[in-house]
């Protein structure tokens, strides 16, 4: 058994480095750094503790092709989120599609395509939270980054509507890869809701989405972030989200995993000053042979911060769930309050869940709780409902919905709660 994987990505990135050396694009230096970092690393294997349950060799070994096809509104229509009133920015296979996007004309708000003109403030922040040296996937994303979204919310400005950023994998007969990038910079007191929505249209060739997002919150800023994974069963997805919180800021990230083949989400949030609050909500609805791995790391660097983490998984068929929740409390971070819960509902005997909390605590006056459960639908509840006339199918929907509700009630955006509920209904009616 080898410990490294030969990947066609290495040749691609090596070829790119040449090109970048002669480029005058503002991102060239960062991308070159990333290309060099990628050359020095290798894709993780299951020998690494953090990748024990998730084997990315299928991604590493595959050959993907960049694809610059265009799609129209009609193709996108089936992915619309009912009742969502939002600004919409669309990327197709990683490239900004202005004809599918709306413009945000609000004072104090900048929404830019990274491939276009980007203000200096945003430029200087790119790559600061998720440096390419961090992991091979971030290096790959950064090296291959051709486009993405950059958002700046000025001091004390509230984005009037959620920003719905749709990343479409438009798949033809060959597999495509895209490496979307998102950067959110919120000045002091700024407030925004951002929805990263990953969908796919077209063919079923195995494809790969490798997004990296950075969120930088200044004092008292507020960001409600969503990651909706609704890609087809042919798309593998490895994401990184890196959040940095300044004094009194409040960051929530909600992840709904309702699609994809192999999914691995990595979230790290650093609470870097006092009185910050961070919430990580996750709901996975898995079926078939889906593999959904959520890795989270919350760093309590300073005192008096709170973090809440709740991940739930509903797993059918032979789907596999993985959860790893790291909480790091620095020596300084007294009066930390950290709660973590991970619960899985197995709808099938062949579904599996691997859950692991990892608490690393160096302060002595903290409150850290964690708990994990795995179970199936409660037979006595189901009988009680049936005895009242509710049929088995509906009883299962209601019980599953109740299970999901414990997380969904913390999703502030109602259309997304509804979207998740509809996904559960569809899931259970397909059985």
């Amino acid at each position, binding site marked *: 058994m080898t410990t490294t994987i030969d990947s066609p990505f290495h040749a691609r990135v090596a070829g790119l480095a040449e090109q970048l050396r002669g480029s005058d694009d503002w991102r060239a230096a960062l991308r070159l750094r990333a290309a060099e970092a990628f050359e020095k690393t290798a894709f993780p294997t299951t020998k690494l503790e953090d990748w024990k349950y998730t084997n990315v060799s299928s991604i590493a070994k595959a050959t993907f092709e960049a694809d610059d096809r265009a799609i129209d509104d009609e193709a996108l229509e089936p992915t619309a989120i009912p009742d969502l009133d939002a600004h919409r920015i669309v990327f197709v296979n990683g490239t900004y599609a202005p004809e599918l996007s709306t413009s945000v004309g609000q004072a104090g708000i900048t929404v830019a395509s990274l491939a276009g003109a980007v203000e200096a403030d945003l430029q200087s922040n790119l790559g600061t939270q998720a440096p390419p040296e961090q992991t091979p996937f971030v290096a790959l994303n950064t090296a291959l980054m051709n486009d993405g979204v950059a958002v700046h919310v000025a001091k004390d400005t509230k984005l009037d509507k959620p920003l719905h950023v749709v990343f479409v994998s438009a798949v033809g007969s060959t597999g495509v890869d895209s490496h979307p990038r998102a950067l959110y910079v919120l000045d002091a007191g700024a407030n925004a809701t951002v929805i990263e929505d990953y969908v796919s249209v077209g063919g079923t060739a195995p494809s790969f989405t490798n997004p990296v997002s950075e969120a930088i919150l200044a004092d008292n800023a507020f960001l409600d972030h969503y990651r909706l994974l609704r890609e087809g069963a042919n798309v593998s997805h490895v994401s990184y989200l890196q959040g940095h919180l300044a004094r009194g800021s409040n960051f929530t990230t909600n992840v709904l995993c309702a699609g994809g083949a192999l999914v691995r989400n990595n979230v790290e949030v650093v609470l870097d000053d006092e009185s910050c609050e961070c919430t990580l909500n996750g709901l996975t609805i898995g079926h078939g042979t889906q593999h959904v791995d959520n890795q989270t790391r919350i760093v309590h660097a300073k005192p008096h911060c709170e973090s809440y983490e709740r991940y739930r998984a509903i797993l059918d068929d032979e789907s596999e769930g993985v959860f790893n929740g790291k909480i790091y409390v620095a020596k300084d971070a007294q009066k930390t309050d950290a709660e973590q819960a991970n619960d899985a509902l197995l709808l099938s005997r062949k579904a599996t869940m691997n859950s692991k909390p990892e608490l690393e605590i160096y302060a002595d006056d903290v409150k850290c709780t964690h708990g994990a459960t795995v179970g199936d639908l409660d037979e006595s509840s189901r009988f009680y409902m049936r005895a009242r006339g509710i049929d088995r199918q*509906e009883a299962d929907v209601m019980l599953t919905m109740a299970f999901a509700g414990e997380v969904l009630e913390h999703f502030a955006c109602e259309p997304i709660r509804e979207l998740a509920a509809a996904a559960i209904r569809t899931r259970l009616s397909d059985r």
Partner: protein
Amino acid sequence: MLEIKNLQASVEGAEILRGIDLTVNPGEIHAIMGPNGSGKSTLAQVLAGHEAYDVTGGTATFRGEDLLDMEAEARAHAGLFLAFQYPVEIAGVANSYFLKAALNSTRKARGEKEIDAVEFLKLVKEKAKLVNIDEKMINRSVNAGFSGGEKKRNEIFQMAVLEPKLAILDETDSGLDIDALQVVANGVNKLKAEDPERSFIVVTHYQRLLNYIVPDYVHVLSGGRIVKSGGKELALELEDKGYSWIEETVGA
């Protein structure tokens, strides 16, 4: 209404019901008494369609249909209601939502139109008053964190909303103080007055309930069989002499 013949049932291979014969005509109230573990709840659960119990012999006909052949939900749709000895707590499902789903699936199965939110609210208010329950309870999760008495009252409340043809009350009186007991009895009696054709099977250990819900027949279940049947005076006699008296006289 209900005709049970030689009903036998086992759970995990253990034989529990050993041949039950019982006929309940429209409008009748039957009380079933008997020592702990004699099979009273098993009978109730088998009739309601719990799949953990294997029916190994006999028949049960409910309003002309083969009850044992029906899914649990179909039995409810046909008008059978079981008030559970141990009502189940369902966190995250609101009582009102649960009841509305139950009522509507019953209506749908009967080819009636579904009840809308306004009508439902009206019905719920009316029935809540009937069984004297706090309307706040209706918006809480089904039985979650309810006291024993609240759970039992909630069963009666559900019964009042669902308006069954035959209700089986499995020890709904256990653990109730005298006020709550009267509420339960009132619920039953009002439902009976609404429709004199309604029938009830009341499983109880205590004759005190039977002061309020007056049975037409009293049966004693012991060792999975009905070992004695009689009128309401049998309950008094049992209270007086205990079950051992029956077991001795029938020589079981």
